[in-house]
């Protein structure tokens, strides 16, 4: 049996279309066949993690069993007691497999960990947020069997978007009425075709066609060059179209199953500042960090009065938050630097917005200044993507 990476091959889309016929018909008549959805999920997971990739498949099964047992045990504990240390240990244990997978290449010179599989970082987000909501007492009806289906929801298993337990459950337990479902089908089809344009035309053009060319030019001229500038823009567009294209497919596929998986991108290059950028770029990731890292850290620091000034608290937490995101991407200098730059940028951004607020009327505000802000933000973001791409590592150190 061959193995297919999700949404990369025409055969994958054809199989999706065929497998979804009973689901769509059922939904239109107000019925959800959970057992059939599970079969379809199993089939597509097998397609991704079977055949030559069976080792990843075994790693996935092991990981899912581990997380389901861990979160279930924590849920049982939380019903009786609520000790902070147990909560911290539960979170650490939930991220432990991911930490091992991320550290292995560093410790064994580039070797991939045997417990790794495509999508482990995205599943870890779902597991950790579930532990946190159980701790907060807002998730009272935790169910291991449902949790497994939430984790292994195949449309988003490889790279998100990252959904939330309670939001997912609301969709999973109901069937949208016909009018709403028809709207979701229409949107889904639109997203699929937009995804084709993004992923198979634009991402292909920038990533497969242009990127090697500009890389070659930049490598020949060493140091700063026009070629390097080309690498910066070409990589940025490639990254956007590739990931936004994938996300459109994942959202569309979820819609066909009557699940409103949240969108990941909202025209990020139109952002007027870096804060707005993070509200438009890889949104489910940045909102995850906002809700489960940033706000919690701020809450903790403010409650314990760790820093005197709320502004200091906000700034330090911005940097910690974005650094952690950098580490999550991988243990290389360029991912960590990418996180650090964005953390500092958020601090500067807040300072600038505050400064403008304190000095009303001092700076002009018109269409031109808005375009200028978009221009600056766009170029800054592209620069950080150049760091993120790892190309500088190749250029300077190899």
């Amino acid at each position, binding site marked *: 049996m061959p193995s297919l990476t999700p949404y990369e091959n025409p055969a994958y889309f054809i199989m999706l279309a065929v497998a979804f016929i009973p689901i769509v018909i059922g939904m239109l008549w107000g019925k959800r066949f959970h057992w059939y959805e599970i079969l379809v999920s199993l089939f597509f997971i097998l397609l991704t993690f079977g055949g030559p990739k069976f080792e990843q498949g075994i790693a996935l099964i092991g990981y899912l069993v581990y997380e389901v047992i861990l979160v279930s045990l924590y849920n049982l504990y939380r019903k009786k007691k609520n000790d902070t240390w147990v909560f911290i240990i539960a979170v650490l244990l939930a991220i432990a497999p991911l930490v091992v997978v991320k550290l292995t290449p560093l410790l064994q010179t580039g070797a991939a960990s045997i417990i790794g599989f495509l999508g482990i970082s995205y599943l870890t987000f779902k597991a950790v947020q579930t532990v946190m909501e159980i701790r907060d007492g*807002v*998730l009272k009806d935790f169910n291991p069997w449902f949790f497994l289906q939430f984790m292994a929801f195949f449309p988003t298993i490889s790279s998100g978007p990252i959904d939330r337990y309670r939001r997912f459950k609301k969709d999973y337990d109901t069937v949208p009425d016909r009018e709403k479902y028809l709207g979701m089908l229409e949107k889904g089809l639109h997203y699929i075709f937009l995804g084709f344009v993004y992923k198979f035309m634009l991402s292909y053009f920038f990533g497969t066609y242009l990127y090697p060319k500009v890389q070659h030019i930049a490598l020949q001229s060493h140091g700063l060059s026009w070629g390097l500038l080309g690498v910066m823009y070409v990589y940025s567009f490639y990254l956007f179209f590739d990931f936004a294209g994938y996300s459109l497919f994942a959202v569309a596929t979820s819609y066909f199953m009557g699940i409103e998986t949240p969108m990941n991108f909202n025209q990020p290059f139109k952002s007027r500042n870096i804060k707005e950028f993070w509200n438009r770029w890889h949104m489910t990731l940045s909102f995850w960090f906002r809700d489960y890292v940033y706000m*919690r850290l*701020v*809450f903790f620091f403010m409650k314990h009065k760790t820093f005197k000034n709320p502004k200091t608290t906000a700034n330090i937490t911005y940097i910690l938050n974005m650094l952690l995101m950098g580490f999550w991407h991988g243990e290389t200098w360029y991912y960590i630097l990418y996180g650090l730059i964005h953390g500092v940028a958020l601090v500067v951004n807040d300072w600038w917005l505050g400064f403008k607020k304190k000095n009303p009327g001092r700076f002009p505000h018109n269409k031109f200044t808005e375009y200028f802000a978009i221009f600056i933000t766009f170029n800054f973001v592209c620069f950080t993507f150049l760091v993120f791409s790892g190309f500088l590592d190749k250029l300077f150190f190899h």
Partner: protein
Amino acid sequence: MDTKETVLNILADLTGNDVSGSMDENLFDSGLLDSMGTVQLLLQLQTELGIEAPVSEFERSEWDTPNKIIAKVEELQ
């Protein structure tokens, strides 16, 4: 002081604006509230009204206007 007045006072402190004239204004869209302001709001509600609202309880779309915040607070009281 009733709940409404307390909430409006907290919001005025946090945002530096009197929001009582625009009870249905989206405070996140207008830039008056952000994550930091949200946490401060939750902490203030805890000290002044004794409401225990964990961060998980905070679903942005349910807390984005003064009216919605007051409704939420009354529900949690």
